[in-house]
């Protein structure tokens, strides 16, 4: 059980707290009327920490003598014992008000250091350090400085303390994060703090969160109307934690119990509905996300295999080349324009398309061109080429995976329900897949080049008779398919590993999608990819990832047995050509 206190500062705090009050650390007087927060670890229903908010008068007096963090507290802070550390933190926090913030933030960011377990230093980003005791600024950390370590238990307490202080910050985003943290510990002692914050709050979202947190606390109260209102507010949320609170609703008064129970039941039903909706939407989304990846991987193949009839076993390696092109672009951008690093994917997209398309055109001109109409030889030759490409990449970049970093705007996700967070990188890939699909369809159906492609694939001799340069069209079509594979590689590098064997994992899936969808049909590929994605995610939800993979393969085998031509079949005399 640990205990800590902090004086809550009622003056608004600027978001750049870490520099505020650096110089007058420790010298600040005690503000009367500050509030004390105490945290206990609470083993039972909620695992987090219990807050006890106490008017500070009495307790503060006992700390007045220790307004400055003294040597004893600092050495306790530097000790390995978390209980001592928390005790010391509590005292420093209690006596220094918001001036403890730089220390707390430094502790959270691993920027708090000690020298010989006595002197406590705060390291700043520019390499300078400040003495927490004297405020003296050092040009650099001494060599003997050691970082003060915290574990999850200390981190939990620290986050809560910071949240309580930051609830009165100037920055709405910071207040939002603060109330999200406080929501984990709905203890009655928080009420005055929340009421005060609610009065001042202008941001609708923060206000809503504070009201929910307040309702979570008021639920345990005595007043029936307040409790009913609290139940109603909680019934509008989608948080499973609220559901548990409602389920465990304590009812002492027999008269009001029936009404309260009924309201709580209704609220639980509402939350359950929202949770179930979130769950299904989550499964559909992850299915669509997997489907969009399959679609990207298979779209290039739908062009080269579907339209041209080339069994290209090196298709996966073209994806891999696209991913490596992304990696190289990332490295170049980091080296020559680090400020623009977040936007490297915009450069990586054309780079991966062009690189893969170039390799594809070379492949077509040098090898595949001589093997048209001989599927078995094409298969063997392209398989050999795929091995060569893997080995080439292994020689150039090494056998180990390379690290492709997500730009900041592709990290994180958007929260729809509390149990449904849609990651940005997956949304981006979904949108990107739709865009590529749109572009390919447009190119094939609305452009002169697309007309030639369709003409050549439907009737090669006749197209040649009409003056179409079939050899050039072949090369360009193959290049297009390869380029799309390259784009897929660029997208895949954002969610998975980039290594020489990257393509091997997608070649089977790609063929599966194209064959299932019906050879020669872009629409079939789309349906097959999305269908397979959603289906395998639903099976995975019930049977696990290993069984899902097996089940999908079995289903495809059965389906192809019954309907060899796939979902969609090309009608016409030259379908088999």
């Amino acid at each position, binding site marked *: 059980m640990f205990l800590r206190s902090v004086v809550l500062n009622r003056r608004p705090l600027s978001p750049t707290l870490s520099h505020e009050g650096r110089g007058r650390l420790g010298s600040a007087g005690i503000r009367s009327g500050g509030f004390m927060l105490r945290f206990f670890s609470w083993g039972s229903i909620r695992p987090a920490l219990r807050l006890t908010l106490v008017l500070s008068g009495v307790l503060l007096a006992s700390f007045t003598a220790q307004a400055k963090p003294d040597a004893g507290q600092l050495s306790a802070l530097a000790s390995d014992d978390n209980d001592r550390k928390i005790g010391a933190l509590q005292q420093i926090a209690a006596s220094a008000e918001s001036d403890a913030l730089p220390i707390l933030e430094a502790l959270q960011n691993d920027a708090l250091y000690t020298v010989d377990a006595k002197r406590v230093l705060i390291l700043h980003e520019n390499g300078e350090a400040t003495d927490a005791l004297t405020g003296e600024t050092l040009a650099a950390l001494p060599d003997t400085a050691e970082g003060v370590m915290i574990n999850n238990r200390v981190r939990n307490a620290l986050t809560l303390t910071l949240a309580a202080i930051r609830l009165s910050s100037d920055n709405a985003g910071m207040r939002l994060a603060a109330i999200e943290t406080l929501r984990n510990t709905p203890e009655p002692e928080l009420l005055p703090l929340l009421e005060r914050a609610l009065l001042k709050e202008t941001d609708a979202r923060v206000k809503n969160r504070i009201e929910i947190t307040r309702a979570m606390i008021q639920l345990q109260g005595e007043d029936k109307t307040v409790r009913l209102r609290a139940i109603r507010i909680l019934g509008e949320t989608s948080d499973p934690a609220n559901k548990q609170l409602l389920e465990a609703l304590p009812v002492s008064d027999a008269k009001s119990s029936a009404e309260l129970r009924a309201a709580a039941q209704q609220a639980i039903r509402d939350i359950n509905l929202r949770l179930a909706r979130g769950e299904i939407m989550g499964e559909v989304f992850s299915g669509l996300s997997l489907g969009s990846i399959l679609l990207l991987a298979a779209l290039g193949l739908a062009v080269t295999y579907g339209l041209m009839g080339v069994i290209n076993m090196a298709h996966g390696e073209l994806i891999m080349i696209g991913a490596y092109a992304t990696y190289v672009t990332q490295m170049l951008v980091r080296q020559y324009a680090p400020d623009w690093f977040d936007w490297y994917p915009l450069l990586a997209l054309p780079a991966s398309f062009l690189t893969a398309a170039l390799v594809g055109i070379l492949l077509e001109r040098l090898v595949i061109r001589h093997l048209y109409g001989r599927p078995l030889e094409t298969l063997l030759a392209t398989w050999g080429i795929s091995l060569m490409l893997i080995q080439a990449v292994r020689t150039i970049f090494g056998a*180990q995976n390379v690290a492709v*970093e997500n730009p900041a705007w592709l990290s994180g996700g958007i929260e729809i329900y509390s149990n449904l967070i849609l990651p940005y990188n997956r949304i981006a890939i979904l949108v990107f897949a739709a865009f590529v699909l749109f572009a390919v369809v447009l190119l094939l159906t609305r452009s002169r080049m697309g007309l030639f492609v369709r003409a050549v694939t439907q009737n090669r001799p006749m197209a040649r008779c009409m003056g179409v340069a079939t050899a050039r069209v072949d090369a360009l079509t193959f290049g297009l398919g390869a380029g799309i594979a390259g784009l897929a590689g660029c997208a895949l590098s954002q969610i998975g590993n980039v290594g020489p*064997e990257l393509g091997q994992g997608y070649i089977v899936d790609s063929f599966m999608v194209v064959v299932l969808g019906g050879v020669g049909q872009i629409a079939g590929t789309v349906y097959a990819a999305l269908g397979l994605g959603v289906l395998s995610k639903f099976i995975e939800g019930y049977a696990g990832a290993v069984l899902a993979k097996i089940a999908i393969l079995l289903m495809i085998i059965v389906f192809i047995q019954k309907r060899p031509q796939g979902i969609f079949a090309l009608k016409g005399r030259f379908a088999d050509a």
Partner: protein
Amino acid sequence: MKRRSLIKSALSAAALSIMSLAFSPIQAAEDTIKVGILHSLSGTMAISETVLKDVALMAIDEINAKGGVLGKKLEPVVVDPASNWPLFAEKSRQLMTQDKVAVVFGCWTSVSRKSVLPVFEELNGLLFYPVQYEGEELSKNVFYTGAAPNQQAIPAVEYLISKEGGGAKRFVLLGTDYVYPRTTNKILRAFLKSKGVAEADILEEYTPFGHSDYQTIIARIKKFAAEGKKTAVISTINGDSNVPFYKELGNQGLKATDVPVVAFSVGEEELRGVDTKPLVGHLAAWNYFMSLKNPTNDAFKKQWAAYAKAKKLPGAAKPLTNDPMEATYIGIHLWAQAVEKAKSTDTDKVIAAVAGQSFAAPGGFTVQMDAKNHHLHKPVFVGEIRPDGQFNVVWKTSGPIKAQPWSPFIAGNDKKKDEPDGKSK
């Protein structure tokens, strides 16, 4: 005429080169001792195993610089079994029968070790296995320098249950689908039951090797954790699947303060290339961390950084050390010491000499090979991920603890002997 003489000379040249090839091992055997290195340099396990090959080569260079073993230089023979389990068996046979190596350092996954085990026993070879594993195995021909379950998994879970670790009451056992995660989870399930955790509070999930889509699994973990009680995830995911797993974990906002994830096969090397800022506070349990502060570790890190730079290794810009690297390093030194003691590279003599050998390890303790059970006595550390991808040690044992290859949490193990059978052979 001219052409014929050309063919003739070509033939004789070929014959000469074949002869010289055939003789060279015998000549070499006189002044060098061959040492096999069997690690995947490609495929899904390359992310973890490649550096073990490099650190083995570094240790061999180090020993050679000090004059070698028995006055002979060590000659490394590196093969790539490509994360392909049957290929491990083939390559190990090749190392022992063709290259005639005195010892092999290698394997990461238990499935690869199980695959080479019959070969080593048949040919009476010697394998030093450097990775934590599930136990349930003792072979006279293998020395295990990684952790047994009681040196990693059990202490880590005890930490999670403790007050410091957050007092977890519900557990998700998540792993790659093969022998190590399955057996470890079997042991952990029995252990958790002995600690009073109900069956309904344990969720077990497996994914294939190289799995890259963790959306569904993270959603399930979230749902499981939302049903009340403090939840922790115990991850035995192996290989490069860890990168998409941790990326998804970060993107879905599952924080360590809510649901901590403790991993048994994720170290500094696996986190290279992952944005670790959203992962701060997630845990790993090992017998060594790069962030440990002691003179031996400082020297080890310096040596590795210099070696990586000199050999222009891919990660040389940010040299990282980790637990299996330390275990490989310890293994090679223990073997070299044993050969010096036995004054021979004969497998049986070396096996007898390895028992009881000790070595001042970079982990900060002098670790000792058990006199009987072929496992090291090792200290245990639990670390939390820092924003820079290193680990803060938040818990450790006071000293090395003895390995229990036969876990007491699996029925019937109490009757098994704590030493390999057929030792006297």
